[in-house]
């Protein structure tokens, strides 16, 4: 898995934020788009594309998209 593809998948789950606004350093929970529904969508996206089960606590403990990417890789 590579971070570019991960960001693409991440962007697909957002309605307002375009992919050009996202970088590995983006603090995803501060996006205007972020909500509890987005969190569920990201968890489902990771489950579907990477077959990794992450939790709400994992999301809370991650700040940037890179953090989340590293976490998924380590699972």
């Amino acid at each position, binding site marked *: 898995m590579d971070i570019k593809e991960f960001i693409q998948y991440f962007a697909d789950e957002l309605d307002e934020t375009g992919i050009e606004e996202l970088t590995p350093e983006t603090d995803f929970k501060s996006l205007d788009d972020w909500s*509890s*529904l987005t*969190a*569920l*969508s990201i*968890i*489902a*996206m990771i489950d*579907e594309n990477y077959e990794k*089960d992450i*939790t*709400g*606590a994992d*999301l*809370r403990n991650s700040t940037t998209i890179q953090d989340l990417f590293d976490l998924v890789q380590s699972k």
Partner: protein
Amino acid sequence: MNQFSLNGKTILITGASSGIGAATAIECANQGAHVVISGRNLEKLQAVYNQLSGKGHQTLACDLCSLEDVENLCDQLPELDGMVFCAGITRTIPVKRIKQSDIDDIFSTNLTSPITIVNQVVKQKKINKGGSIVFISSISSSYADMGNSVYAATKGGLISFAKVLALELAPKGIRANCIRPGFVAGTGMTEGLSRLTEEQIELERQKYPLGFGETNDIANGIIYLLSDASKWVTGTTLTIDGGITLK
């Protein structure tokens, strides 16, 4: 005579290897019933069987997603005085990420298999006059929670099915009702919570005027609906939810 007793009644309980189903099996046996317990995992089912008081109980392994398994189950069933459909699964997924396999799995376990089993049991005349059928629905049937849509659809479906069933079986003196639980600790539904943070779970708990429920809170309602104490109750839904849907 204690009208709440299940003495001498034979009761089928699906989803009996854990959660509400396991608690129901144990409590029904405590009330004098012979129970036929069904679940996917024979080892877990056996562990519940070992906790049943009294004699004359039976285990039947069955994967409710398999039509063949369901038909085998129906063929092996003895004559029944009651059935309790506790088997249920959920997946926390927003609508836009639902896959066909999610729909198929959740529907077959939660809604299709209870309908098929009732159909077979009634057709084979394996449920006695005075019998009672109980479906475990959920407050999700009308109390929306994000990520829960397919589960909610199956739980609403059970309520609708039970009403028509109640009308059709009333001439035979057989009753059909639903229980609509709120969040109960120690069930398969807890897995859905792993997708929430501890703060979110705590917020959820605070919404419940009486806190989260226990499996026995539901089992006691089921026993009422199975027993002769509820002989004039049919086609209804008993909400047991610690008061969460009050507001």
